[in-house]
């Protein structure tokens, strides 16, 4: 058994390219982080490194974390209804910090009408309740590979 696992691990290591790093963030006054934790776990299981920020983060804190961690993407989880203010602010700050190449995706209770507006503001994709985690993982894998 030991031999088999070692063999598998080292094969993976030598094939390892750049590891995808994703910040999963809870923004604003919103204490519900189960969704964020589930997506964090799903991304981990897909082989990504997930930097989890914890609750009640400001857009400024999220962007600074993303810069220091040199992350490829930010997954913003938001259920408070303040997404039209907070999410565009994150994108604005990324651009101000010369980090406009970081992919932003959103998960949460986002009304249908707001989705095109968020995308216009620069959000890559929006995932609403009920989305299978697999879909979000696949989206992120493809989007990061394409960038």
């Amino acid at each position, binding site marked *: 058994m030991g031999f088999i696992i070692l063999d598998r691990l080292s094969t993976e290591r*030598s094939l390892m390219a750049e*590891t995808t790093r994703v910040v999963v963030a809870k923004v604003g006054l919103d204490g519900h982080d189960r969704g964020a934790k589930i997506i964090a776990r799903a991304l981990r299981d897909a082989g990504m490194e997930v930097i989890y920020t914890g609750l009640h983060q400001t857009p400024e804190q999220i962007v600074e974390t993303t810069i220091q961690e040199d992350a490829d993407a930010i997954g913003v989880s938001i259920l408070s209804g303040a997404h039209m203010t907070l999410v565009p602010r994150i994108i604005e700050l990324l651009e101000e910090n010369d980090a406009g190449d970081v992919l932003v995706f959103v998960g949460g209770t986002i009304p249908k009408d707001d989705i095109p507006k968020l995308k216009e503001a620069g959000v890559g994709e929006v995932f609403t309740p009920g989305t299978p985690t697999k879909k979000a993982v696949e989206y992120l894998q493809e989007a990061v590979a394409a960038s």
Partner: protein
Amino acid sequence: MSDNELTERLLSGDRRALARVISKIEDEDPETPDIISDLYPLTGAALSVGFTGPPGAGKSSIIAKLIELFREEDKKIGVVSVDPSSPFTKGAILGDRIRLADHFLDKNVFIRSMGNRGHLGGLAGGSRLAGLAMEAYGMDVVVYETMGVGQGEVEVASAADTVVLCLQPGAGDAVQALKAGVMEIADIFCINKSDHPQANEAKAQVRSTLEIGHELDPDAPMPPIIMTRGDTGEGVEELKEVIEEHRVSLEESGELGERRRASQREFVVSWAMNKMQNEMQERLEKEDKEIMERVYNRELDPISASEKIFEEI
């Protein structure tokens, strides 16, 4: 972008460049050796402290308080914080930042989370080089936080000049289990959660273990045991003083130089070994597939197979 430009940006205080350099280190990017050779001469002055101990002892919370105290003195601080990567998917959830959130917007604090990516010893393969990059960037203090460790993960002792072992009360058996290995590399002991009813007991256990060592080797200094509370910050000021005193005593006794020579030597050997290991791995995969087939079929034993690969390098 050329390395030189990236290095120059790092040295001019661009934190994005520092972040990018650390990624290159982590990804074992072929440009890494050149970058490190530019940065290395600029390192060595920072106060480097390693925090280690079992998961949940409170390392991140104590570091958060410590950062606060160093910031009051206007010192710049870098933190390299390691969490485990999944051995199966290579993925990781890096959550040490949660406790450090108060410092996210302070431009003089740079926190980097790392998955250990299969590296053994409690740190990630790139942790030490990341710490060097932070030193070159101008950090006065570099803190290494290991992933939660058990007995044998002692690499932090060669990364940092001063090692703090954080323990928590109510885990009497854990303290017993930590008698060897990690207990031996600590310069300072920190019993966190000092409000716990068994805190004094934990302290007494650590002390009695240390006293035995002291009796056997009376010349060795008795490491201080500091009681702290990560939640309120109680005791962390004392911890900081003890850390600084330790550094001074290392300098005065000349032990700092000795320790660093030993750790640099170790680093050079481990880097070379790592390279060799990768080469052997590649050999095994690309050219000698039939060797493994023979091992699987019990025609060749694993030791003979490994010697065959070794000879061919």
